[in-house]
């Protein structure tokens, strides 16, 4: 691979595009052919019925038929099929390879819950703030929305993101390797505003946050570290939180592991020490090779992944815009670098402005693929100067049993045929 010439667009146009079915525009005829060839096969017909429904609603020339009327709540085009991958009862993964920009649609934000998504009527939902405070309070959702509000774009990443990649490459796509991270614009009231309202006692150094799901999920958080940036959020990307993201109220701690961002938040209790809940002792602790375990490993360190081209995709020789996401729980992305030779050399990628702290940052890198087998990588360097490590460097320190916080460099191999697969180097 080589960096692209000055004017990559004109170069691209000289490359003949392979006439593969995937590269053809989705036409009425193509869809019709598929439907016709399966006529008479009852089972197949049933499977294809959604396709046929789309087909029937698409005119051959949309300029000659009046369009559909306005609707109460918008839907995406029936031709768009990008979906989360449901991992198990406990969660689902964001299709990073299908998304552009940095904002994750709320409907595609990854999920991680500990006993399902509760159904909550917001008119009955309450937040109790008590413990070592001067004035314990119960706040309704209406109360919370009356406080001064703030909006902020931040990523939330599960500490288990890429956890299945410690020992060997397992995920086939960027969604499967890195899909437990998403970015939203979160809106709510600053945690500090509410804690100031109740009046913290001087000895209140830890805060228990508790959800009203069937796991009554709890985490203890050190007050000094969350006062500045913690948010009590009721909105995501401009509308109310999705149920699976904590409707009607979620704690968001920018840059910290997702499980600290307690969903369906019902209670904050101030104390003098960690409450040592199950989720900060037997879970979300990082086992080291000597048998000790790191506890309260909150920050999600700098990480990145190339989303185009990525696992499961196919590339063609010629111009490629390598695209990806970089982020750091310690602040802003200072630099994203791309290697087209398996990590031997690195070149700086272009960052999409605005570059926001603790937020997914889109990077792009123009190059040409000459058809030879190669390995693509990216690495994030954040404002602290921290460089996203190679997998071998990470394992040398932490071994392979720590489960969480795998922020190793991801490698995508491009075969001579242009197939992209997940590999480790």
């Amino acid at each position, binding site marked *: 691979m080589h960096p692209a010439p000055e004017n990559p667009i004109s170069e691209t146009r000289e490359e003949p595009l392979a006439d593969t079915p995937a590269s053809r525009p989705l036409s009425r005829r193509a869809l019709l052919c598929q439907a016709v060839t399966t006529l008479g096969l009852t089972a197949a017909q049933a499977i294809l019925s959604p396709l046929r429904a789309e087909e029937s609603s698409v005119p051959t020339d949309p300029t000659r038929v009046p369009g559909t009327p306005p609707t109460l709540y918008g839907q995406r085009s029936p031709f768009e099929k990008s979906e989360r991958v449901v991992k198990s009862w406990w969660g689902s993964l964001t299709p990073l390879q299908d998304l552009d920009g940095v904002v994750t649609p709320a409907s595609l934000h990854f999920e991680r819950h500990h006993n399902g998504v509760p159904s909550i009527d917001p008119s009955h939902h309450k937040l109790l703030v008590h413990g070592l405070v001067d004035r314990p309070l119960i706040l309704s959702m209406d109360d919370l929305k009356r406080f001064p509000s703030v909006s902020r774009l931040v990523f939330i990443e599960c500490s288990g993101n890429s956890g299945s990649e410690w020992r060997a490459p397992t995920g086939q796509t960027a969604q499967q390797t890195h899909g437990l991270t998403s970015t939203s614009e979160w809106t709510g009231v600053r945690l500090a505003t509410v804690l100031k309202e109740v009046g913290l006692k001087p000895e209140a150094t830890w805060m228990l946050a508790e959800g009203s799901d069937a796991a009554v999920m*709890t985490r203890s958080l050190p007050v000094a570290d969350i006062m500045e940036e913690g948010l009590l959020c009721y909105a995501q990307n401009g509308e109310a939180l999705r149920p699976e993201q904590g409707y009607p109220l979620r704690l968001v701690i920018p840059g910290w592991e997702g499980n600290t961002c307690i969903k369906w938040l019902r209670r904050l209790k101030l104390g003098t020490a960690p409450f*040592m809940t199950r989720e900060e002792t037997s879970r979300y602790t990082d086992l080291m090779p000597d048998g000790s375990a790191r506890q309260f490993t909150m920050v999600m360190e700098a990480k990145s992944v190339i989303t185009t081209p990525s696992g499961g995709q196919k590339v063609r020789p010629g111009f490629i815009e390598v695209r990806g996401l970089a982020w750091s729980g310690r602040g802003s992305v200072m630099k994203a670098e791309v290697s087209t030779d398996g990590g031997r050399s690195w070149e700086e990628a272009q960052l999409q402005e605005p570059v926001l702290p603790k937020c997914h940052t889109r990077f792009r890198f123009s190059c040409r693929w000459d058809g030879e087998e190669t390995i693509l990588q990216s690495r994030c360097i954040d404002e602290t100067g921290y460089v996203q490590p190679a997998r071998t460097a990470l394992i040398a*320190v932490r071994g392979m*049993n720590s489960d969480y916080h795998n922020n190793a460099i991801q490698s995508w191999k491009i075969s001579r045929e242009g197939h992209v697969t997940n590999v480790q180097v």
Partner: protein
Amino acid sequence: MFRFNLVAAVLVITLGIGWQKGLATAAEAHSITGYGFGHAPSDRELQGWDIDVRPTGTGLPAGQGTVSQGATVFAGKCASCHGATGREGPMDRLVGGQGTLASRQPIKTIGSYWPYATTLYDYIRRAMPFNAPQSLTNDEVYAVVAWLLYQNDIISTGTVLDAETLPAVHMPNRNGFVPDPRPDVSR
């Protein structure tokens, strides 16, 4: 309570003055010592939610349970997910694994990994059984905690667990945890 009323009174007066002048400016609003939203919880409101149990034992309710009572509870309400002896699954293994944490195949269980016995009470009471959380009585939770600790060779068969004895149980991996040293990987 007197202090709260005083604050509320000051707030009412402050807001009242502000209102007479029209809307207060942002700077004025910021200087307001309290917004006055919400209400103070009653003891009854606190009771239903204030369920956390700390390593000191704070929060443990009255009641007690024995190993043999726990065996019955576990067989009836837990074994279908965790196995007859707490080792078989299909869900989390709860028993055994002591001495494996530094091996290539660590087995993290209550006995090998959990640092505090009180966490068991807190977690089981709030979240178990998975299909019917918060359905166990306080005595049943004490009992099933006793059975799990006995299965892990941490307490003897005759131990009765209650709010006094549970926090005194020493877990084998009590000192197994260290603070976060990151950043720990250099380039």
